[in-house]
């Protein structure tokens, strides 16, 4: 049964017609055209579909729409402000911190949540914070360096 649902996504209120049990992932990607959040496993095990829900990273593949009504959702597209990339994204570019890039959005989200809570993390804190995100190409160390670089940039 479809219902009219109101969601706050990247700071803007959005309405859509959908079954409230629909996973948030498909509403983001296919109803709202926010393709940066990606399907990886469908069970919250890989982190490719992480979004921020009230600031906490959560798998959009496993989150039904009804559960996020009235909450604030941020996707990778909403990380930057005023048309500028988030310092994390600048740092990922500077470090060329990706190979295939499929896991990147989810990792940026997890890293953004970390820096919001802990602006100057140690390397080991960064690794622990990213442990729910899988990367298959082996770009882990570059991404860790990029997160530390972004933290330093933000602190300046």
């Amino acid at each position, binding site marked *: 049964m479809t219902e009219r649902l109101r969601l706050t996504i990247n700071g803007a209120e959005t309405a859509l017609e959908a*079954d409230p049990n*629909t*996973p948030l992932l*498909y509403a983001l*990607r*296919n109803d709202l*055209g*926010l*393709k*940066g*959040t*990606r*399907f*990886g*496993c*469908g*069970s919250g*095990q*890989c982190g*490719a579909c992480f979004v921020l829900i009230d600031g906490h990273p959560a798998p959009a593949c496993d989150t039904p729409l009804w559960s996020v009504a009235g909450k604030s959702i941020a*996707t*990778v*597209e909403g*990380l*930057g402000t005023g048309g500028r*990339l988030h310092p994390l*994204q600048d740092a*990922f*570019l500077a470090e*060329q911190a*990706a*190979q*295939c*890039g*499929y*896991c*990147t*959005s989810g990792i*940026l989200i997890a890293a953004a949540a970390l820096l919001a809570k802990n602006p100057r993390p140690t390397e*080991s804190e*960064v*690794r*622990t914070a*990213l*442990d729910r*995100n*899988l*990367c*298959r*190409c*082996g*770009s*882990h*160390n*570059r*991404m*860790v360096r990029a997160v530390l670089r972004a933290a330093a940039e933000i602190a300046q």
Partner: protein
Amino acid sequence: MNTVAESRLKRPGSLEKNPRLSQWLRVHQDGTVSIFSGKVEIGQGILTALAQIAAEELRIALERIRMAPADTSVSPDEGVTSGSLSIQDSGAALRRACAQARELLLERAAARLGVSAGEMQVADGAVRTAGRSTSFWECADDALFDREIDETAELRSQRDYRVVGRPAPRRDLPDKIAGRPRFIQDMALPGMLYGRVVRPPHNFTGLISLDDSKVKSMPGLAAIVREGGFVGVLAEREDVAISAQRALRLTASWRETDPLPRNVPAWLRERAIEHRVISEKENAEAKSRAVTMLEASYTKPYISHASIGPSCAIAQIDDGKLMVWSHSQGIFNLRRDLALALGMREDAIVVRHAEGAGCYGHNGADDAALDAALLARAAGGRPVQVQWMRDDEFAWAPCGPAMALSLRAALDPQGNIVDWLHELWSNGHSSRPGRSQGPALVAAWHLARPHERPSAINMPLPAGAADRNAIPIYDFPNQRVVNHYVHEMPVRTSALRSLGAYANVFAIESFMDELARAAEIDAVAFRLRHLKDPRGRAVIDAAARRAGWSNWKSVEGRGHGIGFAKYKNLGAYCAAIAEVEVEREVRVHRLVLAVDVGLVISPDGVINQIEGGAIQSTSWTLKEEVKLDARGIASLDWEHYPILKFSEVPAVEVELIDRPELPAVGAGEAAQGPTAAAIANAVAHALGLRVRELPLTYEKIAAAISQST
């Protein structure tokens, strides 16, 4: 005598098959140049490296180069993007093509300006002479490049390189890091339907029954497609397609195949049907000096590609023509197999490459393309996107083959290896499309008139496949290497990064350490004493120096180890040193790699590939094993197929030895074997006990301990 045939054979890279200049580039009036390569971006950064080569020979700014997506209707046919050959194949061809294009453009500019070539100044495509000017962009037209590449144009001297050999940021990363649509999974064509395929997670030969009564009435479902044992669904919404797939699967019963073997290494040794001696050297005098004999057996399990993004494809049938978007590594071969499976003419099909998630070999991309095409036949002209679910990917993408290996060697009284035997047992390492009589695509085997599933084959040496890197690069007076081929294939196998090299190098380099220990010689010194090749010696030296090999301080539970190989015995040299700690699990703290890929096109690109290869190999070596039950693959999610996590990834240091005077070779597969061996040797060093079965998990270590006591 230099015959025509001989000189033609010397044509570099992919020019042999694609000799027309117009197949490789087009110069546009807006000051950009389109480069057509048949090689595709699979997350390795190849399009950036090829753009660097093109910019260098044309002597124009890198920003002017546009890399056209590979497309069977416009691109040169360069076979498959695999085997770390893109720089050799496509790079060498583009270098020739662009050098000639520049010469032709300059000739035309000279004619236009009415001066000789020497009187012109050329910078970034702008051509000037006293008071007048023109440009490459004004001089080019389609007729100019409508000719054969003659290879007479002078190539730019590497001493003058401005773009090649310097860091160039990856061209695909800005989109990927900003979260912009970039992947085939992100494409949304007007009117697109979402498709999913209903399959069991194990081999089957047909469908016995299916109850679609409940699913049929699901709101938003567009069609249930059934052709023999091929079952799929089409829906307006992706989530509805997924729900329909899940629900239908619960109602299906399948005709199953024979159960899988329980002990895979034993099964491989039993079922080999072809036994080929691939290298033999004899020296009776050296053999007579043998005093110590050692033997050991090693195993490697089936390994999954386990890309983070499952396979995906889009297909549309319009007016009898099929258009397919795919992240295939070989779009021309895919087109051939699609034609066979669908009973269509090849010229009625266009396959265009679109980027997918990381690709480490022959994965499910091609299979998803046939799935999408079959569903598109029921879509009334609308495009259909199919993405596999995680369990489809683990169950149906081909696996890297399991292998069993036995090695035996003899030492003389001075600790020199005087005899060497290496035997390996394995399925074939390639069942890619385009190589067998029938289509190598999953859905084709389940249609109402099914095609036979082809068995994986091995490409011949010197590159080899199961036997890749099985012939030792060391100098032994006696040696014998035997490849035992297993044709039967209960688990679908095909090419996974580095093919047999991973297991062969793991075994050879583990055994070298076992022999060094028996001879009481340091592992690095032992390798150097058996290796003449100066480039090989140089990477071993460089890695040992960087890692501080000779200053190792012994600590309880810690160890270090080295592994070395020249990929395919033809390509990149790589030495790896691992430092590990063994408590319950193995933890790799540090990897140091020294690499020689000849001329370095893109230094950061090479480092990224080596680093990624080393980390992926660490994951394979410590954790990965496709788990089987009697029916099929039982590891269908990340919980049952764990890979290395951020907190488990070692520090990785890469040292490049640049050799600008030598041809460039690929880097993507050089590190896997040496890294595995370095870790295994470090674990043996830490434990004082050898673990010969991969992966080096707690269970395997415990088994090795209990066997030794």
